[in-house]
């Protein structure tokens, strides 16, 4: 049976081309790799190579033929032992249907998930965070810095695969002293100072995670992680999917995020919205020390890459932390940090600071704000947000990041899609201003959200003054 040589497609978009020239004649013996013909497309002239060996039995499409459809038989190749008579009865035929359609599996006829299905989900209940700390648990005052350190130390004690790497994490005891004491307890094998080389050590961390370790990669600030964002997004986040679930990268990228104080535009950016955009990542941004501890422990145990956004100003702030052997906080669950009936304020990280202060002042004026701490930005606990909005009918969002495509923008969009009929006012976003962070003290203050802006936004959606 002679083999048909088909008109090839030389690019994903090619449907037809010109058969310009034959480089072989009928009767020629060819072996794989030999150039058989030249074809021309609008882009280039390219060669058709033989894949099998044999004798060119018959040329079906002559040279200099325009508009030859892809997959049209252009020649017949005789196998060893066949003679020319085998080609009789074959003639140039129309191109067969594209193989994709021919072999279309039944699966293709199954309905694809429609966009609407994705959006309209079952109404979920608000998450009740009160069960995270059993009643009567002893509490201690602890800074966010210490809570983070304790979380790492506890996980490192429990799991040999966990290690910390980053700039100044070991001998210097951490640029912001978050890793203080870890070198003493765990040694240089597990607490590793890196050179200033974010792209490189982020990639090394991901490779180590592929291979079975549980790295904690500290960035001195997330501003520097932009050097490494390719490894975070392309290598860490996408590999589970691209491998059909075979590979995983259980890694935590952590460090301070957002504005500190007077460090200028290149050291003051919030990346919550950037990472939250990426499927395959978990994005966490704690506010309190207890959440910082419980969430970091969960992040280290999580089989996915987790971007853990801390805040330099919060490092030194003290909160109650439960005295428990193994205190964890689930990822992907928001917390009602302050209950209220009149308006919902949704925030995370440093934004919680403005939000809680504003709620306090608003209460004095008789407005009861419900403040929701997202804690995890992706996956976002919209059930808790929506349950609150259905109750208060009003919502504002508070974040330090820029307004366009921000976390608040996403929340506003989802509320519009899922709770439109419950709204008594448009959702308002309080955010950082749409500028690179200025250095001057007064301008920096103006560029960040403020308690007053949160109060003003609440008054606007509650139509009070």
């Amino acid at each position, binding site marked *: 049976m002679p083999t048909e040589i*088909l*008109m*090839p*497609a*030389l*690019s*994903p978009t090619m449907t037809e081309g010109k058969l310009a020239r034959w480089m072989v004649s009928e009767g020629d013996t060819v072996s*794989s*790799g030999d150039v058989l013909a030249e074809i021309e497309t609008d882009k*280039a*002239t*390219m060669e*058709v*190579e033989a*894949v099998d060996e044999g004798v060119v039995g018959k040329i079906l499409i002559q040279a200099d033929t325009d508009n030859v459809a*892809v*997959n049209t038989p252009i020649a017949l190749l005789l196998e060893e032992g066949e003679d020319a008579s085998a080609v009789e009865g074959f003639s140039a035929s129309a191109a067969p249907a594209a*193989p*994709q359609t021919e*072999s*279309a*599996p*039944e*699966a293709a006829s*199954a*309905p*694809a*998930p429609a966009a609407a299905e994705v959006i309209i989900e079952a109404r979920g209940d608000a998450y009740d965070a009160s069960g995270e700390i059993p009643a009567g648990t002893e509490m201690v005052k602890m800074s966010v810095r210490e809570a983070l350190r304790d979380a790492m130390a506890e996980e490192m004690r429990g799991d040999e695969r966990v*290690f910390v790497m980053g700039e100044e994490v070991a001998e210097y005891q951490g640029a912001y002293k978050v890793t203080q004491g870890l070198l003493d307890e765990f040694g240089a*094998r597990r607490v590793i100072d890196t*050179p200033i*080389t974010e*792209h*490189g*050590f*982020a*990639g*090394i961390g*991901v*490779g*180590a995670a*592929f*291979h*079975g*370790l549980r790295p904690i990669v500290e960035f001195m600030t997330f501003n520097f992680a932009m050097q490494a964002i*390719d*490894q975070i997004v*392309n*290598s860490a986040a996408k*590999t*589970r*999917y*691209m*491998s*059909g*679930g*075979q590979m995983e990268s259980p890694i935590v990228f952590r460090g301070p995020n957002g504005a500190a104080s007077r460090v200028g535009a290149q050291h003051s950016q919030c990346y919550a919205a950037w990472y939250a955009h990426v*499927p*395959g990542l978990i994005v966490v941004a704690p506010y309190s020390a207890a959440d910082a501890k419980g969430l970091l422990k969960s992040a280290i145990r999580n089989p996915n890459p987790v971007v853990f956004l801390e805040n330099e100003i919060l490092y030194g702030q003290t909160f109650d932390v439960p005295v428990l052997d193994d205190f964890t906080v689930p990822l992907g669950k928001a917390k009602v940090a302050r209950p209220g009936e009149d308006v919902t304020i949704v925030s995370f990280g440093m934004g919680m600071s403005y939000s809680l202060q504003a709620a306090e002042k608003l209460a004095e004026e008789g407005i009861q704000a419900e403040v929701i701490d997202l804690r995890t930005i992706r*996956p976002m606990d919209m059930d808790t947000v929506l349950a609150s909005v259905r109750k208060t009918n009003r919502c504002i969002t508070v974040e330090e990041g820029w307004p366009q495509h921000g976390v608040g923008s996403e929340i506003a969009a989802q509320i519009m899609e899922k709770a439109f009929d419950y709204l008594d006012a448009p959702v308002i976003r309080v955010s950082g201003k749409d500028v690179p962070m200025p250095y001057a003290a007064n301008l920096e203050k103006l560029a960040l959200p403020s308690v007053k802006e949160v109060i003003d936004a609440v008054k606007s959606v509650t139509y009070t003054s």
Partner: protein
Amino acid sequence: MAPKATTTGTTTRKRRTPAKIDKEQVQKYYRDMLLIRRFEEKAGQIYGMGLIGGFCHLYIGQEAVVVGMQSTITPDDAVITSYRDHGHMLACGMDPKGVMAELTGREGGYSKGKGGSMHMFSKEKNFYGGHGIVGACVPLGTGLAFSQKYQGTNNITLCYMGDGTVNQGQVYESFNMAELWNLPVVYVIENNEYAMGTSVKRASAQTELYRRGESFNVPGEQVDGMDVFAVAEAGRKAVEWVRSGKGPYILEMKTYRYRGHSMSDPAKYRSKEEVNKKRAESDPIERVRERLLNDKVYTEDELKEIDREVKAIVAEAVEFAQESPEPHPDELMTDIVA
């Protein structure tokens, strides 16, 4: 014996085919290289039929590099490479059916059809991809070696990259840390002379790529990458160096790809004569074939039998890759997070 490399220096020896050859080993070289060649030719052909989409980077011409190198490691060692990866997967012992079915985007592919040509993995075979971002596999491979050392294993990593990769900054960040921390990784630079359409000369201020580790005290060596024996010999010594705890090693394999960068490459950046000359004079498979025949290790008929076997494997892979169904639509939203 460890290669003659000092901590600062590099040796540049073109290795020669050894006088004595191990029959079984040579048969494996021949068979493995031929499998890659036939597989890639077939992939090129069915790409032309529209069965494979997107980008498809063929390894034809470079077979000796991966086949020679893989013969120097154990199944427990790790392998990682960039996007021209079909040859590496086959040389790692991955099933040609699963690789071809991934190329056709089918459920039976190594990544269930969700990865494609550049993104395939096999935990079982210690193949860690398949990475589409040029340069990314180098820190990742260094991380595999980090883990091997951290876990106290005696395993090593082969981290393949192309001549285009070596101009990415993260490569040097990796060289630095690998040497600093004595990580067990062999960096195999497959210098096929062109990064897409840009020749090494037009892209690299230092064209002797084996010397790219000098600033970090990583020894390097240049090897005739068209000679599987030379590759294996250099590979064995580099692997031994690395496994013995001396830190990373660089091998620059001088090789050549016959086909374009990807399927839709009009190849205007090099002459047909150049390609033909390489094929005629230094084809890695022909070289082994001639050697086998001259030394009367095999007869023409015995080699034909190997050819037939290889063809049958490839034919079976293509059949599987066409019959395996497309992934179910439900697969769209799975394997994102665990």
